[in-house]
């Protein structure tokens, strides 16, 4: 009983091992030599080269157009340009060229992305198996597709590297032309100058009329202001409402401050910096009364 079971198990194991190693077609499909040659010749080169060729043609056309434009510009040349002028113009042209190059590179970027999308859904690859009728050819095609997937991935990876390289190139060129990019970012922030503030201060000061009793207010009265773009006052709110209710000196003086702000409308807001004054604070300080 035991013997027979051992024998059957042993046989089963033997057959499995034999089948596994003796029949390699179960594990790996054997490569066929001839189709590999075909793959190298036609499909890869034709597909990829066509597309690349198309873009190149476009590029050439674009370049031609650019050249034409330049020519148009060059038609009315100055009668007698001095050396300095020539140098300046050359420098300008160089800059322009650099800018164009960057622009082109930037323009290329989305195109590459578009291609990527197209490659993700390649219609030609899908159509091919339809054209092939024989089973062998189908197998060959499958084999081709299997082999194709790997190089395509490699190409994509290489393109990503290229894109990254292009990006760094663009950044480098932008930095060359614009100098320090951080400085540009800082310049875009709205900063108020002392004169901007002084102008508003002096304007409001004219309208602030307080009584001597305001000297009893020992703290700064803060008002929350919101303005329109033209400097007109949208709203004035007294910040410390609690103190406004409790302290009669604070209340009366805060009212004078509110009147001053409303009376001074519109405020002389600095041009281009109106956004800064959409919401801001006025601190009214009564300590000057002691010097009266």
């Amino acid at each position, binding site marked *: 009983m035991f013997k027979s079971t051992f024998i059957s198990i042993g046989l089963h194991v033997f057959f499995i091992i034999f089948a596994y190693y003796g029949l390699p077609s179960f594990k790996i499909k054997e490569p066929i030599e001839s189709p590999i040659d075909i793959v190298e010749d036609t499909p890869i080169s034709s597909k990829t080269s066509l597309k690349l060729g198309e873009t190149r043609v476009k590029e050439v056309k674009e370049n031609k157009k650019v050249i034409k434009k330049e020519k148009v510009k060059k038609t009315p040349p100055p009668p007698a340009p001095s050396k300095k002028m020539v140098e300046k113009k050359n420098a300008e042209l160089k800059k322009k060229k650099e800018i164009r190059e960057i622009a082109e590179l930037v323009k290329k970027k989305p195109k590459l992305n578009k291609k990527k999308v197209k490659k993700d859904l390649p219609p030609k690859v899908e159509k091919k198996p339809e054209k092939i009728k024989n089973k062998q050819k189908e197998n060959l095609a499958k084999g081709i597709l299997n082999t194709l997937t790997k190089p395509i991935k490699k190409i994509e990876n290489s393109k990503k590297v290229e894109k990254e390289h292009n990006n760094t190139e663009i950044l480098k060129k932008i930095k060359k032309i614009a100098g320090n990019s951080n400085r540009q970012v800082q310049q875009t922030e709205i900063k108020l100058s002392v004169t901007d503030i002084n102008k508003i201060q002096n304007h409001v000061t004219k309208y602030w009329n307080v009584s001597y*009793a305001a000297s*009893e207010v020992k703290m700064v009265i803060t008002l929350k202001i919101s303005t329109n773009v033209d400097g007109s006052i949208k709203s004035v709110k007294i910040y410390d409402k609690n103190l406004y209710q409790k302290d009669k000196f604070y209340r009366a003086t805060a009212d004078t*401050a509110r009147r001053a702000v409303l009376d001074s409308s519109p405020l002389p807001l600095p041009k281009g910096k109106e956004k800064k004054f959409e919401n801001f604070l*006025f601190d009214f300080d009564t300590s000057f009364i002691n010097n009266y």
Partner: protein
Amino acid sequence: MSNYLNLSFFKVLILIYPFFISNLLADDVRIKINSGQVEPLPIAIADFTGEEGKANEIGRQIAEVISNNLVGSGQFKAVESAAFIAPPTSPSVRPNFTDWTPLGIKALITGSVKSINEQQIEVEFRLWDIIAETDLIGLRLSVDAQAWRRVAHIISDEIFERLSGDSGYFDTRIVYVAESGPQNKRLKRLAIMDQDGENHQYLTDGSFLVLTPRFSPTTQEITYLAYFKNEPRVYIFNLETGEQELLGSFPGMTFAPRFSPFGDKIIMSLAEKGITDIYTMNLNNQEVIRLTNSSSIDTSPSFSPNGKKIIFNSDRGGSQQIYIMDANGRNVKRISFGKGRYATPVWAPKGELIAFTKMLKNKFYIGVMSPDGSGERLLAEGYLVEGPTWAPNGRVLMYFKQEAPIDDGKSSNVNLYKIDITGFRETRVITPSDGSDPAWSPLIPN
């Protein structure tokens, strides 16, 4: 449970965080305004409207009194009613603010008078902020028709306080010495009136000489000095009841005593053997305590508002100057160092200033200084200006001024004046006859 609370707390924090941050970011611009004007505020006081003739007339008079009070304070400038585009009809009707802004008006007072019955009236008023387009205060008072003037003073106080922050001083009275007759036979009577000179009454008949009345800071009582058969006596007069009490005879007394801030003591100077010193008397047990003991003349003592210090004038340094000491008479220190002589120092109700009379080069001055002697400012001057007394809010001073004599044998005019502590606005208080030694009352209790 605690975990749950912690979680919910953090949830709330996370929820409010963006609002907090946005709020902070929104208000990153702060502009400091540390200069401005201290000028009279332009106001409009419309006649208080009434349903019929009598109420209308009272309404007009109330508006006039309010106007006089506020303008007289030096802090307001009334715009002529003739300039009003559309006079308001009732205090309950919101005015058309655009009608008032072209006149430069910042505040508007509207009111009405209604007759409740033959004796009583109902007065209502409202204060409007023309610029902020809002009402600031409103009040309705039912009073005897005869007391319309007092109503006007109460309304003035309310408006003054709301617009300046300071307490008003219009519902107050002045006791002073009314003078009449030639210089050699001068009749001096005690008289009382409203701070604007109205409702004038004599308190004594002139049968004996009266001097230097002083108001109690807490009650409607005055002390005054009267020479009865050439003997100086101090009386306490209760203005509400009309009763007066003899406090005692004080030989060698030249000025009436002043009350302590709590009204339980009086402080005075008494002369004995050519030496004048300062004493206090407890009004409950008549106990007298001597505070100074020097060979000089120490007079005109006045308590600080907290009762801890006393100022007085003394010639102990060679000339008449102002000194300060503790309430028990210790730590005497001179505080006036300017040229000339200083007299009659009076502590302001808030304690931040001391008013005084100064004599320099044949001229008299009324001035103020800090209790440490710094910041001396002279407010008024004249041939003879003397006896400053503070309004209860400490913003206005009253004193008397005598003109230089023109003809021999005839007394020159002596009148009462008031001035705000800025010194910009000096106004004469009209009295039926000459007046001197004014004393300003605290606010009249309702």
